[in-house]
């Protein structure tokens, strides 16, 4: 059963980072180390006492929430638009999904240039940036949700007298609910954990938590960072587990191909 051992070791390697971060955050000692030097929650208190880290956490949460709302408001109609089979549907579809295909480093740079000129290198700029790079996930999720619904249902509603708006409200929207929820969870987490784009647009006063950790890692690497990272992981994992059963998150990741 060597094969089995190899497989389980590989799975273990996948989870190794998580275990290390959580373990390091629980150290009782004064320095970062894994395995931890005794167990204690002191670094969690240190985290909550650290103004910069806490500010980062609040900004992250706020931006993630705002981003999610915006992607729903913009992405859902965009998906419905594509679904209604307009002319040049394929081209428009590729354009709508194109942020997924451009490396974040380039998108980040481009936005930095634009926002510097517009004086938006702050939380607002971050918000806009997050929306741009996450809305395609929402569009893709809603599209695949729509593809799975029985096309006969809106037609049935129409035969019985429902106009387009009513069809949307009473037939389409309820059917979209699972896809919508999984899209929201995904976008929220993507925004929360985003760093590659955010380092370009963040500024000292408005840095989300991942960016704060990023800048700290060079200099003062204290276990309170590990505590912050752990909280990020736990929050993310918590969301995934809470929603996983009923709203698969594989949809946004793969556009419903799985």
């Amino acid at each position, binding site marked *: 059963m060597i094969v089995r051992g190899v497989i389980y070791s590989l799975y273990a390697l996948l989870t190794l980072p998580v275990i290390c971060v959580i373990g390091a955050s629980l150290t009782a000692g004064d320095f970062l180390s894994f395995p931890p030097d005794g167990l204690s929650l002191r670094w969690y208190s240190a985290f909550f006492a650290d103004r910069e880290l806490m500010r980062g956490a609040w900004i992250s949460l706020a931006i993630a929430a705002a981003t999610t709302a915006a992607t729903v408001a913009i992405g859902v109609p965009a998906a419905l638009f594509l679904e209604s089979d307009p002319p040049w549907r394929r081209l428009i579809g590729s354009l709508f999904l194109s942020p997924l295909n451009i490396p974040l480093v*380039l998108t980040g740079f481009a936005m930095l240039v634009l926002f510097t000129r517009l004086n938006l290198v702050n939380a607002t700029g971050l918000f806009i940036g997050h929306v741009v790079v996450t809305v395609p996930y929402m569009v893709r999720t809603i599209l695949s949700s729509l593809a799975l619904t029985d096309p006969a249902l*809106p037609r049935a509603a129409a035969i019985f007298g429902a106009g387009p708006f009513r069809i949307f409200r009473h037939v389409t929207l309820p059917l979209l609910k699972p896809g919508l929820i999984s899209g929201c969870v995904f976008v929220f987490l993507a925004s929360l*954990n985003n*760093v590659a784009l955010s380092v370009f647009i963040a500024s000292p006063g408005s840095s989300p938590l991942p960016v704060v950790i990023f800048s700290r890692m060079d200099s003062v690497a204290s276990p309170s960072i590990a505590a912050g990272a752990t909280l990020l992981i736990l929050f993310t994992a918590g969301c*995934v587990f809470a929603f*996983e059963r009923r709203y698969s998150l594989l949809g946004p990741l793969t556009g419903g191909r799985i």
Partner: protein
Amino acid sequence: MISRRSPIRTIRRALIGLPMAILLSVFFFYPLTDILVMAFQPENGDGFTLTNLSRFTDNYYLGVFLDTIVISAAATILSIILGFPLAWHLHHATSAHKRAFWALVTLTPLMLSLVVSSFAWILILGSNGLVVPVIRTLGIDVTSGLLNSKTAVVIVTISSFISYMILNIYSALQNIDPSIVRAARIHGASPTTAFFRIILPLSTPGIVSGSAIVFAMSMSAFVIPFLIGGGRVKVIGLFVYNFTVQLYDWSGGAALGLLLFLLTIAATWAIAVVGDRLTPWHRRGT
């Protein structure tokens, strides 16, 4: 949706796509075009020049391009080798519960922000971490630690992106009609032969699409090389970041970014071509 081409209906329908179009036009396509133009503009003022680009064609930068490609290729190939067994295992899960469990394990790396996983690997590979003390007890002296090396960057890259590879291969395996494997076995193929002649070829589309994703993400990565490479590992994405955020050399950054983009597209296209060659029975786009 029932479509009837009356003008009011068409306009109304077009309206709902408008916010997205505006958002992307203003905050995505326009800025990208802007830096594309910047790549060809001299430092101050207008005009057209190729000097921004030619800056990066000397031996030093060619070396950097090469390093980036090598790291990305290594990460991709190892992701295939390490990811296939896990996709296989997931494919053969004996119950829905087990499948859900192992699928979640597979998705764990995706739940980590890149900083968090880099942070974790610094802990693991650092001089006070897990690996080095173990190696030391075996008598091998690793004074410099495992970090700040291309190897470390490859390891962390694999750890962060392998989930995409696993999912793609898994999806391809799931799409293989089980009676095809039975047909092979009944007509004389041993389990090993059936794997190499039937299953592996039929899972190639998944391997190819997974490779395209991992390779592209790896080519443009900078967070991992920055944090893990400690300034010693030089990849293009990192240069773009340095030029733009730290040196404010935007023309340089734009030119380098353009080259990176073109290189990535060329490589992804090459992977697609190889993929098509390997799967002559497959109609592209299915």
